[in-house]
């Protein structure tokens, strides 16, 4: 019941829709933060704009709910001014991979010592279900009424290439693995990115035959393949079933980082 210690109870009720996966991710994050022994006074949550970014305001610490896509540069300013603060960023696929894409790349390149939790629900939920840079091919959204046709960003591969020290992906189904991955991210000096695939039954599922929350979580579970196996198949030019995505640890390394506590 860790979340009770960190939740800003007088903000309830929250704005997340019934069946939304964001609460699961926030809970896993708070459990990981709590297991680090971090105090509320030395931990700051920073976020951009969108459903995922509402998370920071529900936690009873100092928090910055910033402008769309800009959470990482705000976090950079906080961390470089006071390295003793533990800085965690909440963001989403639209916030981080579209409007904030450049800031993500440079956060990874600088290897600034923050942990970024990206809740990827494949869609712009807050504005009512528009396509994002991670909307899968063929998926229906209000701005892809004939099916999404653009290639998607692979957020984890991008972060690895740009230089982050720790990159992992899990889903709202894999709560135990996710909690461990977030903890590893918090422990790793430098930039950590944990991408979490979450169900959005209201705006994604409803239009894509995944209206039922259980169906969407099943979809995430069934299509997840461990990154080791995924890479093995790719390297051997073996077929990978359509819709399959890699989960697990993409990179863990100790390149020089910026803003690390002395």
């Amino acid at each position, binding site marked *: 019941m860790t979340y009770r210690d960190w939740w*800003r109870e007088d903000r309830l009720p929250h704005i997340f829709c019934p069946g939304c996966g964001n609460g699961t991710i926030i809970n896993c994050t708070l459990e990981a933060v709590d297991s680090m022994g971090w105090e509320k006074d030395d931990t700051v949550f920073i976020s951009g704009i969108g459903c995922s970014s509402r998370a920071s305001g529900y936690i009873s610490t100092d928090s910055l709910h*910033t*402008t769309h896509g*800009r959470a990482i540069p705000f976090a950079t*300013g*906080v*961390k470089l001014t006071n390295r003793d*603060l533990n800085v965690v960023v909440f963001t989403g696929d639209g916030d981080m991979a579209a409007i904030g894409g*450049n*800031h993500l790349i440079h956060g990874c390149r600088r290897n600034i010592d923050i942990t970024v939790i990206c809740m990827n629900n494949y869609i712009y939920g807050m504005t009512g279900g528009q396509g994002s840079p991670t909307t899968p091919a063929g998926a229906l959204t209000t701005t892809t009424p004939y099916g999404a046709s653009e290639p998607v960003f692979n957020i984890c591969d991008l972060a690895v290439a740009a230089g982050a020290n720790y990159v992992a992906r899990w889903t709202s189904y894999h709560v135990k693995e996710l909690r461990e991955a977030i903890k590893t991210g918090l422990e790793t000096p430098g930039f950590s990115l944990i991408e979490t695939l979450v169900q959005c039954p209201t705006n994604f599922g409803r239009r894509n035959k995944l209206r039922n929350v259980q169906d969407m979580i099943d979809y995430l579970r069934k299509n997840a393949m461990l990154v080791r196996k995924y890479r093995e198949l790719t390297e051997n030019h073996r077929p990978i079933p359509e819709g399959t995505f890699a989960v697990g640890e993409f990179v863990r390394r100790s390149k020089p980082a910026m803003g690390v506590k002395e």
Partner: protein
Amino acid sequence: MKTEFLLGNIACAEGALAAGCGFFGGYPITPSTEVAEHMARALPKRGGTFIQMEDEIASMASVIGASWAGARAMTATSGPGFSLMMENIGYAVMTETPCVIVNIQRGGPSTGQPTLAAQGDMLQCRFGSHGDYSIVAISPSSVQEMFDLTVRAFNISDMLRIPVFLMADESIGHMRESITIPEDVERTERKGLKEGYRPFEPEDDMVPGFSVFGSGDAVPVTGLTHNDNGYPDATNYSTHDRLVRRLYNKVESRRHELADYDVRNPEAETVFISYGAPSRTVMQVLHDHPGGDIGHLNIRTVWPFSEKMLEEFPDAKTFLVPEMNLGQISREIQRHTDIDVVPVSKLGGELHTPGELVKAMGAVI
């Protein structure tokens, strides 16, 4: 106290250092770059942080983050970068984050004249971000003022919890003059969050106390319309009305006390009103035409505009306003007076010549 021969942009950086600036986040852009370069050399030696961000959007974001983490924080830019900063300037206004933005103005619109002076961003600094708000903008007309007014910018910013703009231009930024650097500068500290007050609950002066991150007050900061707790309350009519009026009034109601200006020849009927680089040309005209027939109002605090400044010239028949734009501040002056206000606009990057001002004077007399 020491005397130094400095570039305007470096005097600005020295002023920031004297004021205790501990964080600079910026992006290179002509003609402001020397401010960043000087801070890059000086800040690390003093335990401060210099960071070159990926763009001006990120620069402004990092400055606001640094301010919440407790630093006096600033950035410096010019037109195109200034446009990019508008998004997070609005955030600084809404979240009442102290910070200083230096704009070494160049010719616009767009890429315009990167290496030449202009005053084309005087309305953008006041109105450039969306929504209703007010800010403080101050304009230096000498290298000494690049130092002094940068210090003042930090003090006003911390006092009112607002972004403050140092609106210089290329000619002042790239001018070298002798200046006096004092041993110590006056420093107004941010007031802390008082016992029993909520994080965004204004005191009688309309300004809430500031709780630096890590103080244990669990301050939720958001750009959404929020109540005194800092909690989003974006669909409540009265919360928004009360918040936005306070953000506006905490600046506008102080317009007379923030006013900073010089008056020369107050009995004159023909009066020049200027700020920034054109003030130097006006001073030359007054020097060349002794006798007290020509008045001069030299304004340093341009925004908020104190209309009482105009009352310093009770006999004035004409206000001539030389600006390196198409009349941005002359329009503001006109709305406060029945006296004729004549814009003397000059574009192209060259300063007004004394002859041009004398000619403009001749045309109205």
